């Protein structure tokens, strides 16, 4: 075992000083590249705009303030409070939409994923191909249709409309991820349940699902992240103030010249936090689920 372990990805015990230096230099560079921009977003969000504009430039802000966060949370009055005041309400909208879509996906997508992993049925290959295509489809091409249909149904500027539209790009993903996950669970598990007198549905519901936690977490967290971060669809379909989600509100603030960048940075950081934390907490399952979903098809 020791010899096997030594070879994985090179052998660091025998690394020369020179290659040690190169390795650590590259690791540092990669770490900076990955995280420094996000850290800088945080730094700007606790700075005053005047210090960001000051030259010569300093990486460590001379003053630290929570004013930007107070402004977007509505605790202090300022000239653009109308715009900034939408942040919390839109975050709530984002949360509702993301949670409902995730729920729908987990129920419908998981069940279909199970069938694709276990059953042979007519049109299976064709519907799989169609699923793959819908996964690669530009969502934006569907939006004119949603726009007109929602107008006819009165679903424009409603969260229900967004939930429906978001299922169009999340559901195919979820089916695909769950199919890949169920393929890693031995089919003997279902077979023994069937032998013990369960019907197919009971085998799925009582035996397979309870051991599918990691897959459900992967699919659920990924769906939530996609919805929480989505911009274009919400921007087009929900234009009435108060009906849209967070990304369009942030983009709208960014388009205004009278709002300080530091305030927008604060809303960006606050808005990014839920998805980043979710991904970091569930990273193990998400990485497994996603790589299995795309590598193995």
């Amino acid at each position: 075992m020791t010899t096997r372990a030594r070879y994985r990805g090179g052998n660091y015990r025998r690394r020369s000083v020179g290659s040690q230096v190169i390795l650590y230099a590259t690791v540092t560079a990669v770490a900076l590249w990955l995280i420094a921009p996000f850290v800088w977003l945080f730094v700007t969000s606790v700075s005053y705009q005047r210090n960001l504009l000051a030259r010569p430039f300093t990486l460590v802000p001379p003053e630290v303030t929570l004013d930007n966060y107070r402004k977007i949370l509505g605790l202090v009055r300022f000239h653009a409070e109308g715009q900034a005041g939408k942040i919390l309400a839109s975050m709530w909208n984002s949360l509702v939409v993301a949670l409902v879509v995730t729920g729908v996906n987990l129920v419908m997508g998981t069940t279909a994923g199970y069938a694709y992993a276990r059953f042979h049925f007519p049109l299976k290959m064709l519907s799989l191909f169609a699923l793959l295509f819908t996964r690669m489809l530009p969502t934006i091409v569907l939006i004119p249709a949603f726009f007109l249909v929602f107008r006819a149904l009165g679903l424009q500027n409603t969260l229900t409309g967004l939930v429906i539209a978001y299922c169009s790009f999340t559901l195919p993903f979820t089916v695909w991820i769950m199919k890949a996950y169920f393929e890693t669970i031995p089919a003997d598990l279902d077979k023994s349940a069937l032998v013990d007198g369960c019907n197919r549905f009971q085998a799925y519901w009582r035996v397979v699902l309870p051991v599918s936690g990691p897959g459900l977490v992967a699919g659920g967290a990924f769906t939530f992240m996609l919805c929480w971060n989505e911009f274009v669809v919400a921007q087009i379909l929900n234009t009435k103030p108060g009906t849209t989600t967070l990304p369009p509100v942030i983009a709208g603030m960014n388009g205004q010249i009278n709002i300080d960048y530091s305030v927008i940075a604060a809303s960006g950081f606050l808005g990014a936090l839920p998805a980043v934390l979710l991904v970091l907490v569930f990273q193990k399952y998400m990485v497994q689920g996603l790589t299995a979903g795309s590598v193995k098809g």
Partner: protein
Amino acid sequence: MAWLFVGPALLGIGLVVVFPLVYSLWLSFTDVNLLRSTGPAVELWGMRIPLFRWIGARNYTQVLTDPLYWDSLWRTLYFVGAFVIEATLVGFGVALVLNERFPGRPLMRSLLLVPWSLSRIVVGLLWIGILDFEFGALNGLLLRAGLVDGAIAFFKEGWTALNVLVSVYMWNQAPFATLLFLAGMQSISEDLYAAAEVDGAGYWRRLWYVTVPALRPIVFLVLVLATVNGFLMLDLIYVLTMGGPAYDTTTVSWHGFKTSFTFFKFGPGTAILYTLTALCLLLTVVYHKLVLARFEAEG
């Protein structure tokens, strides 16, 4: 029995994907006027879906004879090419680094997920904080180090702006390529490396003769996924350049987006977007072939 399981999802996908897809295709052959409420329509469960007037391929000829379409297509091809190359090379390079053993490697793998889990609106926003002419951190650092005489305007000149877009999108997407590469690297048998080392192969030879051949399927996968993502990118353009200066960062998807939702010309707009959809269908076929090839290889 199987249909009971797949039924709900397929029905759902049919309603929210296939139906809008077909309806959009129909729209691309009609003279859509959003203000007109009379005219042919389908009555379904009490709702009235307008059909508008069929005008044949006129939207397509109008779009395809517009030099703006072709300009944005060539620009898109450059964008996609540059993005695919950057994302694949950087994604692979980072995977090589993270596949080494060093203290803090698990932390690094967590950091990898940060750029990828951000909304593209936030991605654009934080790069504005770095690249802005007035308050950008990069300009501040360069000026302070005396490397430039005046601040660089990254979004003022079209060519620079386009390449900045490529790199910012790459920052967001390359980590996912890294994840796929890492997963592939970990499935390579260590015996291969051991054997190569016994044969006297150094780091680079092991990389070229063991790692790269074993990762070939994943390389293709990354290429196809990056190509699709490159063609579809829209939100970063919205925050960073709005397609400008002039039309210098207008890609096909942005052109379609603007035609449809800024000018509300759904006919030509859906026609533009459908040319993109056709391309994606082509790429799906390629992807499907790759996936199938892997299925067969695994038996």
